[in-house]
């Protein structure tokens, strides 16, 4: 059954003209990819433009697609490159200093790394406030750390896959993810005094 096929098989099938295969791939990945782009761009307009570009690139590349890695890695690699291009176009903007992948502040050591477990979810209202604050903190993260966190949360990638998508070695990817987590925890703890 086509719905049980892997992403790679579906993409190959679409490369051979099977539209149904593409629809399944799209359903599987459109939400996570859209949120990844939304969080990275910070506004829906840009995110939608990038989102469409990524899928258009995928459609155009369908006949050249080869299974060299997980399809999701391939897809988010396309998205990552598109986000980089987007940042480069906006490089003059001072509002996003982290847009440059070689930026200095991204991987700087935090003063301390807050521990997991200090955050207690008590009720829905509290959770709502927490999530709202988490999104704010996420938006304040350096883009590379934010990207590492989003790739983990939205695509479910391992450190190695994050490294592959972002084109760095696994240690760098792990470091970015750790700093992102630390900043988010610290921000939540400071905000809610927990």
């Amino acid at each position, binding site marked *: 059954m086509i719905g049980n096929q892997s992403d790679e098989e579906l993409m190959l099938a679409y490369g051979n003209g099977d539209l149904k295969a593409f*629809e399944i791939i*799209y359903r599987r990945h459109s939400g996570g990819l859209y949120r990844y782009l939304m969080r990275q761009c910070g506004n829906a307009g840009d995110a939608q433009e990038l989102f469409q570009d990524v*899928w258009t690139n995928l459609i155009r590349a369908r006949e050249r697609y080869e299974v060299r890695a997980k399809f999701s890695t391939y897809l988010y690699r396309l998205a990552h490159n598109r986000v980089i291009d987007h940042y480069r176009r906006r490089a003059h903007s001072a509002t996003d200093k982290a847009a440059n992948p070689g930026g200095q502040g991204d991987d700087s050591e935090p003063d301390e790394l807050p521990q997991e477990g200090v*955050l207690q979810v008590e009720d829905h209202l509290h959770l709502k406030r927490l999530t709202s604050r988490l999104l704010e903190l996420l938006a304040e993260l350096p883009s590379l750390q934010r990207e590492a966190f989003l790739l983990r949360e939205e695509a479910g990638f391992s450190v190695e896959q994050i490294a592959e998508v972002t084109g760095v070695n696994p240690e760098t990817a792990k470091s970015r993810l750790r700093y992102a*987590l630390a900043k988010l925890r610290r921000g939540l703890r400071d905000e809610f005094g927990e």
Partner: protein
Amino acid sequence: MSPQEPEDRAFDRYLQGDSTLSKIYKGTTLETPPAELDAAILAEARQAAATQAGKRRNQALQRWMIPAALAAVLVLAVGLATFVFEDGGAPLVPKPLRSKGSFEQRQRPSKMLDRQTPLQQQETTRQPMGGAVDEPIRRRESEPPQSNVTAPASASSPAEQPTTGAPADAAPLKEEAKREQRPVDKASEADQTAPTGAMAPKDLAPQEWLRRIVELRKQGKLNEAQSSFAEFRRRYPDYPADAILK
């Protein structure tokens, strides 16, 4: 215990999916792309697939086009070859210059040409070898002999006298009258009296020879006709005799 160890454990728990932070993040609004964006992307994918299908059809067509053209050319060539070389490799279409020349050259030195009637000589020299083989026969049937022929103008053509076994246009009038008086013994009489009938087959013009073979067949002398034809074929291997014999 180093201060980094709790952090390492927390990070490991996070990677294993056991993280409060992940739970909080999962509680954020799950934005999804607008429906019109979904529709636009799916339409683009559909169009690309349709274009691809069309391209593949064209490619398949192009892939078959050359073999199909070659097959058509082959069929045409075989058909033409079959049409041209129908009779055991003997071309139905004449090779006028070579055939005519070689045939005439073969005929010229023979004595037989001198013994032919002027009409026969005329036809033999005027007709291209492969031209219409039975054309002289038809012409002789329809036209009277010309005035400068030594035989009388009223002499019948061989086609009109199938039983004589030889053309009578060279026979004298007396012999003709005798034949009319004694129709019963017509064939033997013709053989004895007609000059061409008395000639050996190898001395006859090929057309006359063939007519004699036809006559032999009609008379039921099949063995004689066969041996005569074999001799004819040895003498005139290229002469298109089949059309006459048919």
